[in-house]
């Protein structure tokens, strides 16, 4: 049988229209955008057009966008670049316990360099407290990195409120919007961030390409040295087809955004309804009201996630236990641990189900039935008694 792919938070299938936009670039406009001849100039035009499309989508100016190899590079570049550029003003950084590892491990690296990092706790819905944030803020805080929407449970953070609390301070504000971008319309001026990381493969774009928004006037230390690409802020021959593909994906994702979001809500609700109808014991990790539309993280008491995942996989349902990047070994999720405590059963018995563009209600029906049947294998003794 065909696999039902419900792991869109890990990565998404690339839209065929995106590949179609990329192939002619590979074939015909293959030049190096730094070359001064025709092929270079044409390639340069393509990346500048792409930059305009992307800037317009997030309410930025083209100068404020630098192209990267993806979310991890954007996060590393933002954090290390900002910390190093500002260390004369202070060495304190604030982030959360539920960031993606590209942020968390970079912060740990900065700690080794002597920076002082505060990792904010979250409540049981995965949200930080603004009071705790205010208390953590110090005169020597130079950088705050708080993700827009969590990649495991989907919870949205109070980005705007944080930005307004940071007005007049020395701190730059970075948000990892990798998981949120696409279904969420994000305007950088509106939310008030200085730095924002995005990757294309989370919204049906190609892998290996992303961007970093850097508000005009914000100076980062350069992390990748070499040629003079990206106004000397990121050296390396441009991945022209990748950049063109990303811009195409940005255009596609912003078309009928609200409809797509409603579709995700419907799929999510259908999953919940079906599991309820089947009499499965489960609880929602996260915050449906205040969360990303495509992510559903569910706790199934009595199950073991490793066994559950492989049983579901055999039955043709691809979901995950948490972030794909920590997978391979199924360590307890740092996000669920932060929400429920280190010994909490949620960390060992929860699934992340994430929906995407090509999912249908029928697929979700089928997947829900398979999940219900598999989970009830564990839960039955309890319920039949």
């Amino acid at each position, binding site marked *: 049988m065909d*696999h039902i*792919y419900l*792991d869109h938070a*890990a*990565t998404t*299938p*690339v839209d*065929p229209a995106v*590949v179609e936009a990329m*192939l002619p670039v*590979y*074939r015909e406009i*293959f*030049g*190096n955008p*730094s*070359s*001064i*001849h*025709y092929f*270079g100039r044409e390639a340069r035009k393509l990346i500048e057009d792409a930059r305009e499309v992307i800037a317009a989508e997030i309410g930025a100016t083209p100068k404020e966008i630098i192209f990267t*190899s993806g*979310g*991890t*590079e954007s*996060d*590393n570049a933002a954090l290390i670049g900002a910390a190093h550029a500002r260390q004369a003003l202070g060495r304190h950084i604030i982030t959360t316990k539920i960031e993606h*590892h*590209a942020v968390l*491990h970079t912060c740990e*690296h900065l700690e080794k360099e002597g920076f002082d990092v505060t990792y904010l706790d979250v409540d049981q819905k995965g949200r930080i407290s603004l009071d705790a944030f205010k208390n953590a803020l110090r005169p020597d805080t130079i950088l705050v990195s708080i993700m827009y929407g969590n990649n495991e449970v989907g919870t949205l953070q109070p980005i705007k409120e944080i930005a307004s609390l940071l007005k007049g301070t020395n701190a730059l504000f970075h948000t990892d919007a990798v998981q949120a971008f696409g279904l969420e319309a994000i305007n950088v001026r509106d939310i008030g961030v200085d730095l924002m990381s995005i990757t294309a493969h989370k919204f049906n774009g*190609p*892998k*290996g*390409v992303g961007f970093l928004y850097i508000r005009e006037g914000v100076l980062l230390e*350069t*992390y*990748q*040295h*070499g*040629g*003079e*690409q990206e106004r000397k802020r990121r*050296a*390396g*021959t*441009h*991945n*022209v*087809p990748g950049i063109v593909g990303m811009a195409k994906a940005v255009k596609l994702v912003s078309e009928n955004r609200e409809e797509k979001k409603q579709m995700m809500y419907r799929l999510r609700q259908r999953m919940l309804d079906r599991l309820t109808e089947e009499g499965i014991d489960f609880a929602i990790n996260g915050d449906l009201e205040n969360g990303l539309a495509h992510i559903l993280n569910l706790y199934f008491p009595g199950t073991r996630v490793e066994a559950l*995942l492989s049983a*579901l*996989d055999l039955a043709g349902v*691809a979901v*995950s236990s948490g972030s*794909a*990047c*920590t*997978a*391979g070994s199924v360590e307890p999720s740092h996000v669920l641990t932060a929400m429920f405590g280190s010994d909490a059963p949620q960390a060992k018995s929860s699934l992340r189900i994430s929906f995407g563009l090509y999912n249908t209600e029928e697929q979700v029906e089928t997947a829900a039935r398979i999940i219900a049947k598999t989970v009830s294998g564990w839960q039955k003794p309890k319920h039949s008694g």
Partner: protein
Amino acid sequence: MIYFDNSATTKPYPEVLDTYRTAAEQFFANPSSIHKLGGRSEELLKKSREQAAQLLRVKPQEVIFTSGGTEGNNFAIKGTAFAFRHRGKHLMTTRVEHPASLRAFEQLEALGFDVTYLEVDRNGRISLDDVKKALREDTILVSVIHVNNELGTIQPVKEIGQLLKDRPKTLFHVDHVQGFTKVPLDFHEANIDLCTISGHKIHGPKGTGILYKREGIMLSPLLAGGGQEFGFRSGTENLPAIAAFVKAMRLSLERAQNGGIARLRNMTDRLRQALASHPLLSFNTPSGASAPHILNLTVKGIRSEVLVHALDRQGIYVSTKSACSSKTQEPSAVLLATGLSEEDASHAIRISLSFENTMDEVESFLDIFMQTIDKLETVME
């Protein structure tokens, strides 16, 4: 159209694009996902890595996929410096490296490392004696470009590697971006610890590369995160591009082995022979120990930009110098390092060929090139 700017970038092979498309459509899942689809992607990644290793004659665990040459050089150089700073703070490189290396070294200097930049002779070549003399107790890295991207000069990499053989605390990095497939290099024979290659210079996709990292060397990673690539390079793997890159490696190496290198040599020889007697022309690329695909020459009295644009209008694409710095008007630092005057350096162009170019193209190029410089010379007078 005659594209002779293959040192800037190359056109991907059609088979490479087929692989890209197929992998993008059929292996879209994240290789780190533990479900079956993720497993299939992981399998393709593993096969790609094994094939790349086999083609490079190294072990699979020694192949780290990167986003390209710039990342590879930055990673090798800074990763070594940061990981082994306790052993010593002395680094050695040359005056004629690609900016991806030079700028990385400049950053390290700002951080307190001591960098020796070896001078080069008229041919753009360093001397082994200089390497020997510059080596110190606390030298933790020697980093040398194998084939210079502007001149095509080949550095004595094998000999340097031999020199470093009994110095296990000095790592040897080679920037092989420009040489890979065109100038064979045995990593083991040359005692190389770290070697950078890039996909888009060998008809593969942009945004791909490999850093060969000899087993057991614990570099400090540049990108922290999910711990992909054995923990040395985080970030979701660009699997379709990786598979396509490895395809390009195989195809390019096949072409190289099937007479491709000799054909490149014949073409540059023909260019040299036809241009040698022209009074305005002088070759900057040495005739011995240089790559078969690069010819850098100075056209007296005609500024590089003027000539490049004049050829451009006739469908011929060459370059002034390295594409990565071609926007700036200053003469090439590499040419100046060889002792060329500022004027001669500002009048230099680089012709760079690929396995896809033909002798017919070389002949057409010669006709148009000669006419163009004659015309421009008249205008200049």
